[in-house]
């Protein structure tokens, strides 16, 4: 799940970069940049959930 989260982060960034490079009109460019950031947020949530408390509990 952690790897998938990081892949989503990279995919979101890829969407943002592609939106800049491929879209000329303002509205679709803004929409795709925001969509890319949304994908990044989903990836971030996955990465966070994939990191349990490690080595920090009483032993």
């Amino acid at each position, binding site marked *: 799940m952690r790897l998938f989260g*990081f892949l989503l*982060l*990279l995919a*979101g*960034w*890829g969407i*943002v*970069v592609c939106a*800049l*490079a*491929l879209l000329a009109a*303002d509205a679709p*460019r*803004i929409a795709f*940049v*925001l969509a*890319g*950031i949304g994908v*990044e947020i989903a*990836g*971030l949530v996955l990465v*966070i959930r994939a*990191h*349990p*408390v*490690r*080595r*920090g*509990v*009483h*032993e």
Partner: protein
Amino acid sequence: MIPAPTAGLSYAAMMICLALIFLVPCAAAGLALISTGLGRSRSASHSMMAAMCVLAVAALAYFVCGFAWQGFPGGPAHFASVGGKQWSLLASGHFFLRHEALDGVPASLAALLGMLSVGLAALVPLGSGADRWRLGACCASTAVLAGWTYPLFAHWVWGGGWLAQLGTNYGLGRGFVDTGGAGTIQAVGGLTALSIAWLLGARRGKYMHGGMPTAIPGHNGVLVILGCVLALVGWLGLNSSGAILYNGADPGQTVLAAINTILSAAMAALTAAVITQARFGKPDASLAANGWIGGLAASSGACAFVSPAAAAGIGLLTGALVTLSVEWFEVHMSIDDPGGSISAHAMGGLWGVLSVGLFARIPAAGELGGQSNGDGGQWLAQLVGIATLIGFILPLTYGLNWLLDRVYPQRVAAEGERQGMDLYELGAGAYPEFIVHNDEFTER
């Protein structure tokens, strides 16, 4: 290729910039004191030693290859053609600062400021890895940050890279603007701190079996507050020199940058104090200090381009953001960040980057430096920068530190945590005469 923003600046302006750069080490001293004060007494000497080593390794790595890859606008770089536009991806200067005229020209000032800034970014993760990060691992991680991650992003922002080109290539305002390093220094350092906190895990005794955190208070509030004051001095130099060097501001405009820096930090610290007073009945010194640093980090984004009232507003929001996110990271995300580095630097820095798009009034083309100015879209350029930090820099820095952890484990052995980092790694404590260790490892 975009022209250097300093093209029209006088020799006197360059010398003022140089004098301001000399203040930046105060910020490093401040951050070192803060992370030491917020850590345990049994690791205090180790914390200061790690800060010194990190600064040294960062300076050397930046000297070897960092500046060669960061570069300066107008210098040699590797380009890629993307959709018919030329994107500058990485500078292609000489290693070891060879063939650089180190005589006060803008590129040499950028090299000097970069050498100090990269140390500042590398100090940030020390706060999140306090009490359990091995000294050798700190140095190895710093070498990676200073030799690759930081120069790469700094080139994109300050070296004439593709983020700086968003204005000329796509008409997005003046391209990604980051006056004093809210994104380039603070967010890069803060996201590295997040990676380190994830990789190291929490300190032993921090979380009970049910996952509830226990309080492990910092050992010296005096060091923390002194560090805050020192950091302010350093940030005044950082933001003012950045405004001149990377944004082509006139030396007189540094007064505005300095006032905004102070206002942002002051408002953020007071907001944190008020929030903790309202929630817990008493103001919390460590959270107020985190608010102060968060305010400084956020001010670095737009300090040269916003009104003082807007800077105070940025600080107010930063104080709330930092205070709430410290608790959120600790309780809900189970991230043990003893120094509050992730909240203050990553959250504060990202908010500072966004604030440029929301509040900045950036002069039109020709009024400031040589960069072009689109009709609008500055906020979109800032959003692209934030997306790059979270979507590219975070996976990059996590991946590099994860690889490093496979080769050279970053977390100290359990015995080291029990003894304290001072005795275990350095052989002597910071306060040998009077320290008494409580045992935090008993079952609660």
